[in-house]
């Protein structure tokens, strides 16, 4: 069974870390990740850019593009995609296509700051 581990934290607090504090946390995380990698169990790892860089597509008819992160509480996170795009417009196009195939709800489109593809050994 694959498990997604979704990371939540106070963005202001993490954003207030100094470079050294940030590096120290990343270093400690790397130890755990390395162990999983050696065991062939670590899939993709991503660190997202701040919510200020996010755009939200409401999958209404017609779809509505909003600045900022997904802010509703009555809908739940059900899945995610990682797509390589040249720019935001391209990402929105992908989201629109997906939204047309599965209307209702919303997609939050957030640029990825750091990404390691990982590899799970079957």
């Amino acid at each position, binding site marked *: 069974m694959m498990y997604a581990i979704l990371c939540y934290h106070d963005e202001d607090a993490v954003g207030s870390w100094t470079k050294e504090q940030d590096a120290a*946390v990343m270093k400690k995380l790397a130890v755990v990740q390395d162990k999983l990698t050696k065991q062939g169990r670590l899939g993709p790892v991503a660190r997202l850019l701040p919510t200020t860089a996010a755009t939200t597509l409401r999958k209404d008819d017609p779809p509505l593009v909003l600045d900022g992160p997904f802010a509703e509480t009555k809908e739940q996170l059900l899945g995610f995609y990682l797509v390589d795009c040249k720019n935001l417009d391209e990402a929105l196009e992908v989201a629109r296509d997906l939204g047309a195939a599965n209307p209702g709800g919303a997609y939050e489109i957030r640029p990825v700051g750091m990404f390691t593809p990982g590899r799970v050994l079957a």
Partner: protein
Amino acid sequence: MTDTAWIDTALTSARPQAVGALLRYFRNLDTAEEAYQNACLRALKTWPQNGPPRDPAAWLIMVGRNVAIDDIRRHRKQQALPEDEAISDLDDAEDALAERLDGSHYRDDILRLLFICCHPDLPATQQIALALRIVSGLTVKQIARAFLVGEAAMEQRITRAKARVAEASVPFETPGAVERSERLAAVAAMIYLIFNEGYSASGDTAEIRSPLCEEAIRLARLLLRLFQSEPEIMGLTALLLLQHARAAARFDVDGAVILLDDQDRRLWNQAMISEGLALIDKAMRHHRSGPYQIQAAISALHARADKPENTDWTQIDLLYGALEVMQPSPVVTLNRAVAVSKVRGAQAALDMIEPLEQRLSNYFHYFGVRGAFLMQLDRNDEARVAFDRAISLANTSAEAAHIRMHLDRLMRDSKPRATTASKK
């Protein structure tokens, strides 16, 4: 992180909201700050034992308010007759106690705090000092260090700013739409100034001053969260990120300036660049251009070029042209001329800046740029005159050293040319 570092981080990030809310209750900057400080002291005592509260800002607001109200009560008992005004103000504050801390005031509280720091009665130097003290919570010592002035002088600057704000009638009501957008522009300008204080540092002080850049970015993100659909705030944030992304490549080990063309682009911070580019993409969708967006777009074109020769100078020239229309200034034209020199050659660029000489007669960069154009045109004697003038106008030793490098190059190039004329 050490086991108490999380408290510092939580206090720092909760600060604007907590001080902003306390200011709403007490309508006095000093009282609000003192209440916040007292709440922090309690937090340092109780949080290590009880763990962090679910909502640190709400905790600090509640505790800060209670402590301050106790203080006011105790103080009042020692007075013969209470002032009516103080009582009614206090009653308001007590009514507010019942109010839920649901974040509905969040936006207005932080804005009020930012607007107060950008009060039109305050000169720019006081605005940024006050914002760094009140909103960012840097200590007077830290601010003094970043501004390269003595602690006493900075203390005085901040005290003066606070006194002016107290004298001026600061509106505590939420401003209307027009006033809000005017003041928003003032806040954006203040954040940009903080950034420039850090960014314009010379090599020997860059390390000390770069926290100002980071603080400006933090404030810009804060502002953007309050105004999520404001393209100019996206532009401002993008501009700061894209500029600061180059920080590690801007100076050599001796602290001398490394020009954009000569920087090691692998040292540029890619996460900051991605964030900046993403923000520009967002801003462009609004089709409401503005000076910050244009400057960010120019920065983005540099960031997108993996090598200097891949820079899209034609597009940069066009963007500076748009900026000239929007914000006419000889400095903008001077910057545009650099792009023009790459697209249409040094002569066209020189023609463009010559009419500016009178207005920029005391501007270091004008003579540096002029000298460079003349050098490209092999007018070395004139170039030398311009470089000499630039050195006499240099603001920092790094600037002067950089121009001297050009002069040395002129000397080197002209001597062999006079004798052998073959060496390149």
